[in-house]
Every structure is written in C-alpha cells, then in structure tokens.
C-alpha cells in the first residue's frame, strides 16, 4: 500500500499544547468547519523556530518536537488542524489524548521523526502515510484504525 502526501512543512518546537492548537473560545460550536481559521492561533512565538506565524491552508505537514498536543482532551485539536489543511503530523512524541484523538479521527500521525529530519518551515516534504516507515511506530490495532480512516469507520 502506498499513499504519498506531498506539501509544505510548518515546524514547531516541544510541548505545543491544545490551547495553542485550538483556543477554547472557538470550541462552543458543533460546526467543525469554523475551527480551521483558528488553528494554532495562539502558538507561542518561541515554539515557531522560523519566527513565522502559522497560516491556515498555507501548509500541509506539521513537524513537531516532543509532547505535541499536551493538555486538554479536546478532539477538536486534531480536527482543527485537519480543517486548516494539515494532512500529516510528524513529531518526536505526542501527548496521550491527542495521539488517541488523531488516530480516532483518521489524521495520519507518526513518531518516526527521521521522516522529517532537517525539515524547515516553508520547505516541501513528501511522506508515504501507508508505508512501514510511517506506521511502524504504531501499535497494530491503532494502525488498522488509522488506515480505516478513524475509529467509527473501523468499527
């Protein structure tokens, strides 16, 4: 199996939390399409090594450091990223609930940071989200859920 995703990278540092990914003030809605424009709106400037602010719809792949998605359980965090045009997240590590929510909602994520090593904000990157390299860090069942497109589709 193979599914190549190619696009522009946005690089962030360690411990990017869900309050930065989607501030709670935008979460009083069931219309999830409204979340995209606010993704990463509150990212602390020190966590963007390029010094650039994240722009929704301008990037395709997030490359992150340790503990991406720390903090709250809001499932709208991976959803907001997806709505903002993000198709893949590559990180050194993820916070537990974010990881779970991303798999459950079918957003491809990987802990194989080598796939993005040296990547810089604005550069192009291409990853195969169905390759062994991408999925290899994942438990078999999580992998199956992700490949199905999320937990509801899997069940």
């Amino acid at each position, binding site marked *: 199996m193979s599914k190549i995703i190619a696009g522009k990278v946005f690089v962030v540092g360690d411990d990017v939390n869900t*309050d930065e990914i989607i*501030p709670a003030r935008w979460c009083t809605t069931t219309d999830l399409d409204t979340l995209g424009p606010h993704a990463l709106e509150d990212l602390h400037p020190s966590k963007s090594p390029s010094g650039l602010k994240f722009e929704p719809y301008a990037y395709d792949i997030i490359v992150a450091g340790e503990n991406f998605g720390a903090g709250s359980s809001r499932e709208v965090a991976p959803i907001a990223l997806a709505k903002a045009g993000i198709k893949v997240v590559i990180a050194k590590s993820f916070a537990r609930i974010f990881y779970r929510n991303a798999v*459950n909602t079918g957003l491809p994520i990987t802990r194989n940071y080598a796939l993005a090593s040296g990547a810089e904000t604005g550069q192009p990157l291409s990853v195969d989200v169905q390759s062994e390299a991408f999925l290899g860090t994942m438990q078999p069942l999580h992998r199956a859920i992700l490949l199905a497109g999320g937990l509801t589709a899997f069940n």
Partner: protein
Amino acid sequence: MTVAEKILAKAAGVDYVEPGMLVYATVDRVITHELTLPVAAEQFWHGYGRDAKPKNAEQILFVADHTIQIPLIRDDWQSQNMVEKSAEYVKELGIQHAFLPPAPFTSQGICHVLFPELGLIQPDTLVAVIDSHTSTHGAFGAFAVGIGNTDLTEIMASGRLLLDVPPTIRVNLEGRLPEGVYAKDVILFILSQVGINGFTNCVVEFGGLALAHLSADDRSTISNMTVEGGATCGIWPVGQLRSDANAEYKQAMSYDLSRLEPYVAVAYSAANGKPVGQIGNVPIEIAWVGSCTGGKLEDVAAAADVVRGHKVAKGVQFIVAPATLNVMQEAGRRGYLRDIIEAGGHIAQSACGACIAMGPGTTQEGQVAVYSSNRNFKGRSGKGMVYLASPATVAASALAGRVADPREFLHEKVEAWGHE
C-alpha cells in the same frame, strides 16, 4: 498487578493484563458536558442512525459546567446554544443522570468535583470522561481516563473502550505537610521535578505513609494535576484495592512532605514550580480561587482562613468560585463566603470559568494573575500571565497585591491567638 492493571483486567473480563496490551474494557461511568455532548451525539447518530440509542445510557452522566459564566465576560450566544442542544440530546439519548442547569447560565457544579461528591464515582471501576482532568477520579480508586468525542461515540455504541494498558509509576509520599503547605503545593512540587512530559502515557500510583494524613479533597487535587505531567490517571489505593507485593513499576520515586514549602508555577507551564520565596516581587491584579483543582470545600476553607480579618489589596480582583452548588451551600453555612466577601472578595457561580477564559477573572493583555487552577498555558485564561498556586497562596496574594506566602498571614493569626 498494580491497582490500575487489576481494574483494567476486571473491566476487560480477563485474569491478567500487563503494560502494552490492548484491551476492550467495559466502561462503568462516562461523563460528558455541554462542549462535547452535542458534537458526540451528532456523530453517534451520523454513524449509527438518527434513532440510535446508547447501549449504556444509565452509565452516562451529564453536567453543564464549562461555559456557564461566559455571558459575564462576553457576548457568545453559541455557548448557550450548546447547553440547549445538550438538554435536548440527553432526552433523546435517554440519559437520566443529566444534571441540567437549574436556569439558563447556571450550573450544579464542575463534573470532577460534583460526581465524586454525589457518590457516583466508585473504587474499582472504569471511568471515561471527555476532559483531560479525568485523572482526578483516581483519587477515589477508579481507573479514570480522558477521552475524545469519537471514543464517546463508540462507547455509546458498544459500552466498551479500546485502551492500552499503561505502565505505572509509583510515587511515595512520606511525612506530614507543615502549616500553610497544601496538596496543591505537593503536586506543583512533583511536576517541577518530573516536567510536563514526565508521566506521559503512564498511571501514577500514590503510596507512602503521608496517605493517612491526606483528605479526599487533597487526593483529588493531586490526582487532578497528574495529567499536567501527561499521566493517564493518578490513582490511590482504596480499602482492599491495592497493588500486589510483586507488582511491577516503570519507575518509583519518593518525596518527603514535611520539608515542603508553598510552591508557585510561573507562566506558561504547570511544571515551572518554585518555592514561593524564590518568586520575587510579582504584583498581581487578579487572584482567583476555583476550578476542578482548587474550588473544593477545603480549598474555599483555606482561602477563607487566610483572608479572615484582612482586606484585599487595592487594585486586586479577588474572585472565589466554589466548584459545586453543594460546596457553595456548605461554604456559606460555615461562614467562609462571608469571610471572603467581608475581606473584599467576590463570589462567582460554580463553573470552569476563568481557567478556560470563560468567566470573571479571565486575564486581559498585560495582566498578571494567580489562580488555584491547573493549567497556565499561554492564551488559556486570556491574554495575560497566570501563576498557579494553592488556594491559600492565591488568597495571601490577594491581600498582599503580589504573589505572597500564605504563612505570612497564618502566622499573624497564630500570634494573635497566643496573646489572648
């Protein structure tokens, strides 16, 4: 097996589990609130048909708690829309344990305090909540795990939750807390040692001789904030529910509470804790006591003890939001609310409030605040900076107009009694 492993094995209907195994575990309690139920219900009906009913409606608890104070700070009609939708959906889903607002923009309390208080969280059960501070319920011997909307959708469909059995880290607490030092200081200290990623994907199991001196509220505070280190749950042994002598731990650590000082976590991380004496001169404009971490009866009592007979400093907003209506009523009966008001404080509705920038005490650009809550990420509680501390330290800071040591005020009182 550890306490967590025993609960998960039972919930999965197997004799033995170990870290790394995946289990389909039957959930005993599910808690949801107005920011999540409407999304999850619509997703459930989308996936399973508009007439679908949850398999386990009697196990689902609902309370509106997150958005209740919003109209006090901004015009956001959508938040009320979420509450109204929730009220409609709980009926359609057949959720009987729905703690709906007594009137618009009111609440019966914050879920992590309300449901344990009502006896709806029991030891040796599996609890799943769409909220990260679910780790709280480990204080009552439950294996409690924070989930997302899709997980809730699937629990409604099957009654079960897919879980990785996490490894357990053992934290032994020894010694007795000195006067003026509280459970909140314990967890801020521990987080300063392990960091914001120190417990990720692990259960924290508490042990040691200090347990005998820590109340249910104390345990709740400590478990609540284990998630700030990334923990799945912060669990305490209850009754016969204990880890086996040969249980395996990923790591073990031990802390002596008898020499602990009040701790304060500097913005923007709960793991940025330092002894209050090392904080320096930090003037504040807002002092807020509230949230699932710092709004329980003993938290309100600690704040009242500090401010009793004193006045709040000029230019400081001191706000106390008891975590539930029951806490509000009991704090009123015991005179705490009167003490707080006579000192110059304000009482706010039971709700998540300022902690998620949804109530009075939310910071404006340039403002510095000290909260008894759990999280001080940039932007979480408005545009200002939030320091995290115990309710007593928050109250002392309200009196001093700067981040202050509660012992300054408690000692004065001890001396005054000594003269009588």
